[in-house]
């Protein structure tokens, strides 16, 4: 491996003109929601800073995060991978395999001690000493701990790394555990979603490389710039929600007219993500635009909340599937019955007392 180059060096070497480079900088600034004043800052950072090495490890996952990542359009993932970061280890994307790949990992950890970013896709299962996920002949949890020890920061890609996702859904037989519960001594940026939006992924990386710091996070560790608003807040079908116009079934007139999907279980009102603004596949569409409600994939425990097609979600604590209304209604009917019975007995008792000779009944002995 040669001495570290700056981003700009690499881009020029790859034939990118200065003009294209500046265009890239302004596009990136726009994608991050930054003003024009930040364009020269980004350019300056890319001209002077060495490329940041990134180690990308894969635990229990479906690789949808990687699939999403490589479809980033603004910035293009080719720019991110080839120009901005030095993706020194990613067993899915790298050319090397086997011992060579593992050697690259060790080499990066040693050479950039304390300076590399660890990106984690998927999560480690902890049951049976982590034997449910083996990477390079060793449990993934060991590789994760090893790579995390000298990392500058950790990015938890997707809902698996951030929350646990499907493999951690009830009853979670492998005890799949989100990264922040295994690694507790490093700054962790959660980028949830199943998968996260490509532009959100590259946006987070670009921000970290440009400003050499982690983006501002909310209390649960998600970057505020992408996760501080709900799908509902920016949904283009929101006027139909306020008007009270809903899709009642997927084949009704409301569905054809593009009404709000709230009643068929859309989780937009409880889901924090950028889908309704950034959208997917170069801004082509997103689930609600395609006529299906949001399933809330970037929210913790979204697999365990019952149907994706019901607004009120299931509560499992009672051993049966029931939502708040079913439980409340049952309890209310029970209590109503009890009140009726109690009232009947009270009336009988009182009648009994009255028959025994007094109009000022309750204080007299029967």
């Amino acid at each position, binding site marked *: 491996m040669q001495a570290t180059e700056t981003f700009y060096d690499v881009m020029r070497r790859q034939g990118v003109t200065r003009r294209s480079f500046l265009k890239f900088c302004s596009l990136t600034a726009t994608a991050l929601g930054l003003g024009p004043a930040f364009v020269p800052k980004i350019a300056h950072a890319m001209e002077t800073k060495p490329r940041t090495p990134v180690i990308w490890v894969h635990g229990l996952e479906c690789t949808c995060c990687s699939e999403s990542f490589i479809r980033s359009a603004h910035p293009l993932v080719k720019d991110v991978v080839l120009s901005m970061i030095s993706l020194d280890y990613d067993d899915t994307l790298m050319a090397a395999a086997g011992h060579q790949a593992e050697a690259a990992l060790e080499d990066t950890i040693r050479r950039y001690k304390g300076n590399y970013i660890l990106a984690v896709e998927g999560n480690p299962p902890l049951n049976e000493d982590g034997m449910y996920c083996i990477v390079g002949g060793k449990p993934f949890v060991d590789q994760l701990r090893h790579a995390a020890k000298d990392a500058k920061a950790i990015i938890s890609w997707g809902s698996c790394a951030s929350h646990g996702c499907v493999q951690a859904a009830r009853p979670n037989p492998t005890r799949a555990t989100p990264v922040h519960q295994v690694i507790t001594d490093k700054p962790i940026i959660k980028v949830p979603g199943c998968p996260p939006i490509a532009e959100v992924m590259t946006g987070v990386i670009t921000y970290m490389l440009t400003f050499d710091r982690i983006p501002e996070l909310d209390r649960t560790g998600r970057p505020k710039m992408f996760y*501080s608003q709900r799908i509902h807040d920016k949904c283009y079908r929101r006027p*139909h929600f306020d*008007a*009270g116009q809903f899709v009642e079934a997927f084949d009704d007139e409301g569905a054809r007219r593009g009404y709000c999907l709230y009643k068929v279980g859309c989780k937009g009102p409880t889901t924090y993500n950028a889908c309704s603004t950034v959208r997917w596949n170069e801004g082509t569409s997103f689930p609600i635009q395609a006529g299906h409600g949001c399933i809330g994939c970037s929210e913790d425990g979204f697999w365990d*909340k019952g149907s994706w097609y019901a607004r009120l979600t299931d509560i499992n604590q009672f051993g049966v599937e029931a939502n708040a209304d079913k439980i409340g209604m049952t309890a*209310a009917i029970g209590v109503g019955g009890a009140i009726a019975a109690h009232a009947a007995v009270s009336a009988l008792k009182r009648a009994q007392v009255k028959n025994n000779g007094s109009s000022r009944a309750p204080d007299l002995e029967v």
Partner: protein
Amino acid sequence: MNVIETKAPSLETPIALAGDMSAEDRAATVTSVYVYEAPVRLWHWINAASILVLAVTGYFIGSPLPTQPGEASANFLMGYIRFAHFTAGYIFATGFVVRFYWAFVGNHHARQLFAPPVWRGQWWKEVLTEIRWYAFLEKRPKKYVGHNPLAQIAMFVFITLGSLFMIVTGFALYGEGTQPGSWANVLFTSWVIPLFGQSQDVHTWHHLVMWWILIFVMIHVYVAIREDIMSRQSIVSTMISGERTFKDSDPD
């Protein structure tokens, strides 16, 4: 606790309080105590009204009414329902805060809602007596100027804690819509949502506790009417006039 200051004339010197008073009536001269001051009574009824509005509109937010015909621009049904819910929520929360303040400046009965004397053995014994009264095992209930101990527990658990829970989770959900930076978001949403894990569970709990409070309302109305008839003191009219009247003059 049960010291009753009688305003009415004592039994030793019976006076004809009303023209049609018979000897029997006179033998059980009504005594009364001023319990619920005007702000407490006002709060009670405002609170009752806002709970009614909140429960109905809240239910329709969770399970909306059938789709409205016409253009979206010509309709605002969900918006009006939510507006009513938020307005009633503000009234409910403001009422709770004022009621809490009144616990400090009002009479000692005003404090009952917030401080059940759980450290007192005698109080727990009377809780048991009340339970026995409702289980038809006690022939004669005790007299109370304020709440009886069992009622006090119910008030504290359902109304004090229940209202607090609904106000906190309610404003947390409200703050989601008013966005980061708004007071509701800063004061409530920012910590309530992470505490529950995510927004969906906050919605579910907010919904469950609505039923919790509604069940209390059912019991409350039943018991208030039953006590009014069967106990030794007035209940329903007390929340209108503030006067607790007793049907007998026995000391206990």
